[in-house]
């Protein structure tokens, strides 16, 4: 569907040439402008490089340029005649895995880069695990630096086989492998002439044509952000609930249940400043009016009253990516942020940790920075949740340090017990 935004995350190890790929993509898609390119040329020359180092286009922080590595996720924007793109460029070094998680959380497509000379490494498995856990719709394995292995088909095939076995262990059903050379531009925007054995699309061609994320498998849910009660001359008795439609589409007349209270009513209207809507697809920010006067506040959730309904729960089992230097242990007290609700949480226990080398889970009693594991959390008040696998927006949560406010973990609910 042209005109839609496609969100892409790129991930790779140090020196896989990821910034070069992004620079090349932007450059060849003509999203790099003359003044930006000449600034890069001047900076490259000052550093004594041969030619323009396109990585300098994207490494926005001084420390990144000095160390020649990407530290923080950077967002890039470009458009072609077919589509607009938001590209989250995330760093490769293991200590910055949390940024890969960040980028993947909103992505429709994950582009995982490997160096054709080194093949699948631990970071590759980690990135594949993150993309799978966060349920990114499409995964691209971009085998880079094909120019340095003489564009050899058997090298590419070997890496694809290696990645296949990792994908199998993770339960990643499909992925798209593309051989590229970011430095020379082979198969980045235009199909390469150096790899006649490859019949697939160039990377940009794939991104332009891939279908965006499929709709969630559950009916609409609207987490209430605000209650709209203007009490103005033009709207004296208006009462509506402002929020974003999640999962499926919402229509006037839909029967709904308001959770956690459980009261039932119907949608009287879906309002926007530009007029009422006959249908609000997932993602639309709207104001919902209900037929009956019900006590509803921020943090409540309006769900279409059809199975499967979300669970009202104070007991959650979830996969988490731990993002803090301080380890996570049983008994830790944190704040849990889910949809528009903040509740106090205590970690009941760490159940297991994923070994990213073998891609198997083993029992563990704590999670350290960048660890991915399964935990059980008890809540002071209920949340209204779905498994992440059925609905991203009502299955995802953050764990937050109640004192500093720091975001400590990204959580994905595997089961919510009513």
């Amino acid at each position, binding site marked *: 569907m042209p005109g839609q935004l496609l969100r892409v995350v790129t991930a790779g190890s140090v020196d896989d040439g990821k910034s070069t790929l992004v620079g090349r993509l932007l450059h060849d898609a003509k999203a790099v402008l003359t003044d930006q390119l000449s600034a890069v040329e001047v900076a490259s020359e000052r550093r004594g490089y041969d030619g323009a180092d396109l990585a300098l286009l994207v490494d926005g922080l001084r420390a990144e340029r000095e160390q020649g590595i990407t530290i923080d996720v950077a967002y890039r924007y470009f458009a072609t005649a077919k589509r607009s793109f938001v590209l989250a460029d995330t760093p490769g070094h293991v200590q910055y895995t949390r940024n890969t998680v960040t980028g993947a959380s909103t992505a429709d497509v994950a582009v995982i880069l490997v160096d054709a000379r080194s093949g699948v490494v631990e970071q590759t498995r980690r990135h594949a695990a993150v993309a799978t856990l966060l349920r990114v719709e499409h995964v691209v394995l971009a085998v880079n630096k094909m120019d340095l292995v003489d564009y050899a088909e058997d090298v590419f095939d070997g890496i694809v086989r290696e990645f296949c076995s990792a994908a199998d262990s993770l339960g990643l059903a499909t992925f798209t492998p593309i051989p590229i050379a970011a430095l020379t531009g082979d198969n980045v925007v235009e199909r390469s002439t150096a790899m006649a054995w490859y019949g697939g699309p160039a990377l940009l061609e794939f991104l332009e044509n891939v279908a965006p994320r499929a709709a969630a498998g559950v009916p609409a849910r609207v987490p209430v952000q605000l209650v709209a009660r203007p009490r103005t001359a033009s709207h004296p008795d208006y009462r509506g609930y402002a929020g974003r439609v999640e999962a499926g589409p919402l229509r006037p007349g839909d029967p709904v249940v308001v959770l956690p209270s459980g009261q039932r009513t119907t949608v009287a209207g879906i309002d926007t400043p530009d007029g009422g809507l006959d249908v609000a697809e997932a993602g639309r920010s709207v104001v919902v009016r209900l037929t009956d006067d019900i006590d509803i506040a921020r943090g409540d959730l309006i769900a279409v009253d059809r199975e499967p309904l979300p669970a009202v729960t104070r007991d959650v089992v979830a996969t988490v990516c731990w993002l803090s230097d301080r380890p996570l242990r049983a008994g830790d007290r944190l704040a849990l942020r889910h949809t528009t609700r903040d509740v106090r949480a205590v970690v009941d226990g760490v159940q297991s940790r994923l070994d990213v080398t073998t891609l198997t889970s083993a029992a563990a009693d704590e999670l350290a920075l960048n660890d991915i594991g399964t935990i059980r959390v008890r809540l002071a008040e209920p949340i209204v949740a779905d498994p992440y696998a059925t609905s*991203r927006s009502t299955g995802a949560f953050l764990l937050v340090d109640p004192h500093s406010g720091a975001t400590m973990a990204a959580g994905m609910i595997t089961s919510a017990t009513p």
Partner: protein
Amino acid sequence: MTATIDSAAVRLDDTWLTDLEDEAIHIIREVAGQFDRPVILFSGGKDSIVMLHLAAKAFWPSRVPFAVMHVDTGHNFPEVIEFRDRHLSQLGLVLTVASVQESIDAGRVHETPGQTRNPLQTVTLLDAISAHRFDAVLGGARRDEEKARAKERVFSVRDDFGQWDPRNQRPELWDLYNGRHRPGEHVRVFPISNWTELDVWAYIQREGIEVPGIYYAHQREVVHRDGMLLGVTEWTPPRDGETVTTEWVRYRTVGDATCTGAVLSSAKDVVAVLAETAESTISERGATRADDRSSEAAMEDRKRQGYF
């Protein structure tokens, strides 16, 4: 980075604009849900006009429940100040002005003769934030503007010195924005982070939003300075040896008159501006902002100190 797109910039299918609008409205509503004393920074520039338009839509049919503040260097284009005041009174909003001149008079900052007042805004902004006890400060900055801004979060925590620590930012996951902060800290919020210059103009066209006339082609007395066209104003008189000419120009960004350049243009309306933006080979800030040209890390350094 501004994207260049093929053919007409005006696409019939504007789904992507609706996506961006929905995201921005969601962010603005989260600010209302999570903070006690938010303020919108409004300069009369196109990005802040679009942000205010989005805020009005976010809270419709209620009024925008935020304060509105302009950090005024005292060196702004008079047309923009006139627009600012008229626009806000039409929306029924009251403006707080944080004045750099007052900061200078009070000895809080020191002006360097011949230098732009642009960097001085940081102290005035931080003073105003603490004086009004604002806990959320909404700005119209976009990630595509500049490579340090590309690293910015939508919700970005500032310590009690107003500092940005780019290496210690909170991960921002899904659309779960974490506004928790300690007393004395505040959070900068950028609802149009994911918009490009072209998106802003396409949205201005779609929504029929009014912007100050200096964004459209007009005749103005200018001098060539440091590779930029600088309008001749009372704060930017021609220097010795500079020739004043009258050219058809417009502004792509509107900031302090002493550091904002004009571009040659014949685009007299929004459709023409869209076409021109789509074809431009120079970035918005590269063409017009002297403040970003001083070094490779000029923006990062200013942001670390608490700049917008």
